[in-house]
């Protein structure tokens, strides 16, 4: 019986969302989390994937909306903060090949405890609790924060940042990936947003990706390159990012070997908008 490979690949593709999210460094002063404070994090990511199989373009649209919160548990003398991230609501919509499905989860119990430097770099990350949808939650990169430069930057000044992220294989993602991002940030200036004077930082970057894994008896390899651009607002008074918008495009080559040999070109466009609000 012939396997339905289109369906197989569709399942495979769902592991790719979130590759770029927060994968580029950002800029600015530093985080100065205050113990006891709680923030709500609302993210909305839309993603278009086009893969070409046997000359036919297959388009997959997905939308992921998530609400998380994090509580500042501690800040040590070096300024490193311990944050407890809690997933709350999640909605995942995918539309492809005439099917349009939405999965909604509420009251989730997934929790991750992370320790971050003042620049937002992760010192440790421990899953505290998980649920039956933890494989999806793991793709949200809960606990990742944009990196900041940890210093004052003048208006108009630019700086570079490179980041290498290794994503191990997991239940939700059978592909181990290495993602390298090179990002240039520019402090555009300050501007009023919702009655607050915020700093706007724009960024552009390039991404390179390599991956290897196995799914349904097939070895899979992928490599890709991409670009991203976007901006975020930083509240210098609160030492905290307020919102961010990131647009990225990647071109990925996928090779499948084993029971079936396939080479698939794929393009992925992602738009991600995130806001942080302190809970009063």
């Amino acid at each position: 019986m012939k396997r339905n490979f289109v369906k197989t690949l569709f399942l495979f593709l769902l592991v790719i969302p979130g590759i770029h999210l927060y994968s580029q460094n950002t800029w600015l002063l530093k985080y100065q989390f205050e113990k006891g404070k709680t923030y709500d994090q609302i993210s909305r990511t839309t993603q278009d994937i086009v893969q070409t199989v046997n000359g036919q373009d297959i388009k997959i649209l997905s939308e992921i909306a998530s609400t998380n919160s994090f509580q500042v548990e501690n800040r040590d003398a070096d300024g490193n903060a311990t944050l407890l991230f809690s997933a709350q609501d999640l909605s995942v919509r995918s539309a492809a090949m005439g099917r349009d499905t939405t999965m909604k989860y509420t009251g989730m119990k997934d929790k991750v405890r992370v320790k971050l430097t003042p620049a937002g770099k992760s010192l440790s990350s421990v899953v505290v609790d998980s649920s039956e949808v933890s494989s999806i939650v793991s793709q949200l990169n809960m606990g990742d924060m944009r990196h900041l430069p940890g210093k004052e930057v003048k208006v108009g000044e630019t700086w570079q940042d490179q980041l290498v992220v290794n994503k191990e294989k997991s239940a939700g993602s059978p592909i181990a990936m290495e993602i390298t991002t090179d990002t240039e940030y520019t402090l555009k200036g300050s501007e009023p947003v919702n009655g607050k004077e915020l700093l706007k930082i724009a960024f552009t970057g390039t991404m390179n990706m390599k991956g290897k894994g196995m799914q349904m008896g097939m070895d899979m390899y992928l490599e890709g390159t991409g670009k991203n651009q976007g901006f975020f607002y930083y509240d210098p008074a609160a030492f905290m990012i307020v919102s961010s918008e990131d647009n990225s495009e990647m071109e990925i080559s996928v090779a499948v070997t084993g029971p079936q040999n396939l080479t698939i070109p794929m393009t992925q466009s992602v738009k991600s908008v995130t806001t942080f609000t302190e809970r009063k």
Partner: protein
Amino acid sequence: MLILFIAGQISGQNTKKGLSVITPELLRQHIDFLASDSLKGRNTPSPELELAADYIAKEFAALGIRPVQNSWFQPVPIISRNLDIDRCQLAITLGDQKTNFRLKTDYNPFEMTADTVVASSLVFAGYGITAPEYQYDDYDGVDVRGKIVLIMKHEPGEKDTASCFNGIRETRHSQTSVKLENAMKHGAIGLMIVTDPLNHMLLNPQGHPWPAFSSFMTQDNLPVEMKDGKRTIPCIQVGETVVKALFGSVDSLRNIQKRIDQSLKPRSFEVPASGCLLQTALKITRYPVNNVIGILEGSDPVLKNEFVVIGGHYDHVGVQKVQRQGEDNIFNGADDNASGTAGVLAVAKAFSAMKKRPARSVVFILFAGEEKGLFGSQHYCDHPVVPLDKSVVMLNLDMISRNGADTLQLDGLAYNPDLASILMSEARKLNLRNYPGEEDLFKRSDHYNFYRKGVSAINITSGLHSDYHTVRDNPDSVDPAKAALISRLIFKTAWKIAGEPIYLKTVPIR
């Protein structure tokens, strides 16, 4: 009247003798050979698939089944295509300035490109779309016959919810294959496609990820396909360097795109004083792959020119290339579909064991390339050895040896009501009960190609299971008694249809 009488006599003949030769031992014997490690998963193509084909042909010969046109084998044109990087070229002349572009860096052929060279002037044709339903035609006012055309990807208003096309939902016109077809329809001899710069950041010449370019793919990582003989033209994706050479800058093209999107009027034009030499070259490898076909001629002088087809695929998916220490890497395909192949051979043996032949002729076909895309049956249906309009039924056996003693899954009952009625009636007599599977498998095996050609066709299976397409689908996991029982069902059904001038209607899929 006489024909009907004779046919009725034959149909009524006791099938006991035929049924008696369909034994679990016989099924076991065939499955053990076909799914043995020495056949390495019977991949299409592979030397082991050829061994399996020889085995089937010898079995047919031993049963007194005859070959068709003096051969047991119907060649299936299976090929793989890789890019011949040394023979690809793209050169563009503007006035007296000629630029040679580099493969991969500046341009990259698409998968559906032709193995040929073309030369002509260049025409820019917007998005390359002809969409009368949206009163939009990029080819309006330009003659591209005998010319190489440059177009953009996607469609007007791609990110615009108010786009007259279909808002932000792309229509079929944005598909690369549709654009290629449209260019050819307008007489173009070559096609260059560039990512539209207004809505996209990446202007790389992505094209197809040919193994020839890749640092991580092995050179044999090529899909096999069936040579379809469809005409095509050189078709490449070009990148930023080509855009700059032709338009001066990416911004110039972006501005043209903006104007097209705003006005929905074509901005196509022949590039003045231009010339283009485009060659895309392929290394095509052909593989020896065969369907195996035998025929038992009918006894009735008229009805013998009508045919009952009994088939299944004999290929599986081969081996896992990367062998991990201590792990099995052979996909033996005992249930899928050594069991169905064994079933066809057993039914053939039952027919040959009968004292009299049935009125209609019976064709036994074991297909290659099913796992790669129903290739063998597609080729057969395009090049049948007996007329399809005289083939009254196709009974397909695919995975018949699992999931309990009395279960059966018949795929396609709703589209074949007459055949369904006969099969269900015979199944009841054998205490086999139909359990519709969770997945609709009607389009996923060889019978479907027959159904598409108007032949009443049903897939007979014992259904999917957790060992499906894994290295665990081994001979020791099948139930030969179950395979024998389903084979008896096929024999009884086929015997009935082969013996009477009954005609089976089909219902189109809605």
